[in-house]
């Protein structure tokens, strides 16, 4: 049983339809923290994502993973599961403060 979500496949251009509720970054971050650590600090060759990039850089990196334009092992499979709005929320959570 899989969700038809055309916005996720290529949808890097068009904004997703407005969701009923804003993404909850602290909850979404659990997906990242499971490997990158609770603060995003990384380890065992897993890079730190703790305030390493600007929000724009973070979003660009996730989009590159999503399009398989950036070498990865799991990140392509992961990022294709999230909407643009969710990735923006994660950028605000992990990227350098602005």
């Amino acid at each position: 049983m899989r969700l038809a979500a055309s916005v996720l496949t290529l949808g890097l251009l068009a904004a997703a339809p407005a969701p009923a509720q804003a993404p909850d970054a602290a909850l979404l971050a659990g997906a990242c923290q499971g490997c990158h650590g609770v603060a995003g600090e990384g380890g065992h060759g897993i890079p730190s994502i703790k305030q390493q990039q600007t929000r724009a850089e973070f979003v660009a990196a996730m989009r590159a993973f999503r399009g398989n334009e950036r070498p990865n092992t799991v990140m392509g499979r992961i990022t294709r599961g999230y909407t643009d709005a969710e990735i923006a929320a994660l950028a605000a959570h992990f990227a350098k403060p602005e």
Partner: protein
Amino acid sequence: MTLPRRSLLAAAPALVASALAAPRAARAQAGAGRVVIIGGGFGGASAARFARDRFPQLDVTLIERSRSFTTCPYGNLVLAGRRDMASITFGYERLAARGVRVVHQAAVAVDAQAKRVRLADGAQVPYDKLIVSPGIDLRWGAIEGYDEAASARMPHGWIPSLQPISLLAAQLRAMPDGGVFVMVIPDNPFRCPPGPYERISMVAEYLKRHKPRSKIIALDAKNGFSKQPLFQDAWAELYPGMVEWRGASNDGRVVRVRPAEMEVETEFGDRVKGDVINVIPPQMAASIAREAGLAAASGWCPIRPTTFESAQVPDIHVLGDATVAAPMPKSGFAASSHAKHAVACIAAALSGRPAPPAVFFNTCYSHVGDDYGISIVGVFRGTPERIIEVEGAGGISPRNEVLGARAREFRRLEALYADGWYDAITNEMFS
């Protein structure tokens, strides 16, 4: 007001009982409430940490009978001789220091009407919201002859608090070169879908190094399994001729065991002898969940996919392996994902806000050889009817034939990242 009381309790467990009875008026903060968590594994410990970090208005009690937690993940590395028990065992001291009231008692009953949990010592713990993350029980007798006594001779090694993996490891160490290691694997659903196959791999790694004339015969009650092409590629490449896997349609379903003869019998009467026999039997939600009325006839606990509230009892959320949460697997990472969402839903409900969007996540790595790892990923969303896996995302890592020249480095990285996952998730719970 809650803070001084909590820190006082952390220092003086003897005061727990009286403080638990403190009047509700003592907690005036908006959205405050007593959250009680039964079970200190991946679901329960993650819930406690997340609640403490994110929702200071919540009063958090964790009920866990054991003083330490040995993970099921990485138990297979103990079989391989790569890890020792101490490296996969954790204590609850840091959770207590963070302000979680940790009560080392068995929860024996839930009174959902009065909203309180009864402990083995007779104490009652009142709650506003209860989280039950109980893990699994084994279905003794589901395979004829496989009861608790039989499991000493034919270890399961599937519930660390019931039987440490060190028992199976000791039998493997004592096995002669040229011996046969038999594994009995259940049908779905069961805890850790890739676990039996990682176990085959880690036993094979040990045998290849120490007892290379030995064989592994895996008798499986189903016809396919998690990450199957990746496991089978690795077995052919790393352990040629060592692993024989038989699925259900090849008479792999074991219906009877005879511990005295060190023999198992399949559905169609084939008798297979082993020098070491590892039986992973069918499973169900652990007893506290069944006794609290949280489980359906299947033995597993139905939940509301948008909140992980019990579909059967109000004000109780159920997490982890005990739940019916397919297509999410019964994994530690999944339990942690359920946990954070359930805690956020509880905090929202107590303050009159709507539940957050239900987005869940899982990654399971498996070690299959030296510097050789594989993975499966899933992103999931809860709808009122069911949990749905996001199409186009997730899935298993590419096979070596697809990776070509990159295969070796890819497999090395997945093994490395597996260790990163293990450290990250256990640190989050226990450090």
